[in-house]
């Protein structure tokens, strides 16, 4: 049990330390003044973002038909497997009724 708690603590620590990497740093950029170069960079960035948005439309994303089906099938399969395993254990433990 101690080993399990140690493992869970390690898992939590890893998760907590990884999350700040994804913190948005856009606000930091706004603090600096906007010179001509910054404006140009901003325009280029906007242009790149538009291009990325177009790419995103082509990519399989959340909300599209077939790939959403894959997710639903996976969740159902996991739920089904867990349910089936639980049922197997419960049915193995329950004593069978003998007909008189």
């Amino acid at each position, binding site marked *: *049990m101690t*080993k*399990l708690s140690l*493992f869970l603590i390690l898992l939590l620590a*890893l998760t907590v330390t*990884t999350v700040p*990497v*994804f913190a948005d740093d856009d606000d930091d950029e706004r603090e600096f003044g906007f010179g001509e170069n910054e404006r140009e960079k901003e325009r280029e960035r906007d242009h790149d973002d538009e291009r990325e948005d177009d790419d995103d439309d*082509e*990519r*399989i*994303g*959340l909300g*599209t038909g077939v*790939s*959403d089906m*894959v*997710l639903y*099938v*996976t*969740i159902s*399969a*996991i739920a089904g*497997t*867990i349910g089936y*395993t*639980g049922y*197997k*254990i419960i049915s193995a433990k329950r004593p069978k009724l003998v007909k008189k």
Partner: protein
Amino acid sequence: MTNRYFLLVFLLFLIPLPAFADDDGEDAVEDLGWVAIGAGVIATVPFIVFVKVRKFAVKAGGSTVQIVRQMAPSYKPILNFHIIVNSIGYFSGMLHGLLLSSNLEPISLSLALVMTVLMISGVLLRYTSSRNAKMFNRLLHGQFGLVILLIGLILLHVFTADD
């Protein structure tokens, strides 16, 4: 003996490091995915082969029982190898997913879910002492359907991730 064991574990955890030797950051993150797949194959295939051979030898009976006896001492090291390398693969895969979370799509999410279910059931199978929990996790961890689903999702992810 214990020191040597810890050194081996430490060295095994260094396996994903070459993924960062690449100059391009995106490529390094992508390589982490390949590290996860490689670690999964290396950790799982020998273990499954070992277990199947042992089962087959027990079923066959006769002189093969001697082979089973000879195989018995190597079970624990192979199991530990399976756990350690699969843990490395799992964390590499999760890190790969977290770093590329801006491109999240249902197939990757499904893959992460199946990996997590198998990982949690494996950890609980190894570290719980309750008889019921052990039995439940043994059945869940060895479900053929989940393994097939995992392989299918890995293939789908590899083929669709670059699109």
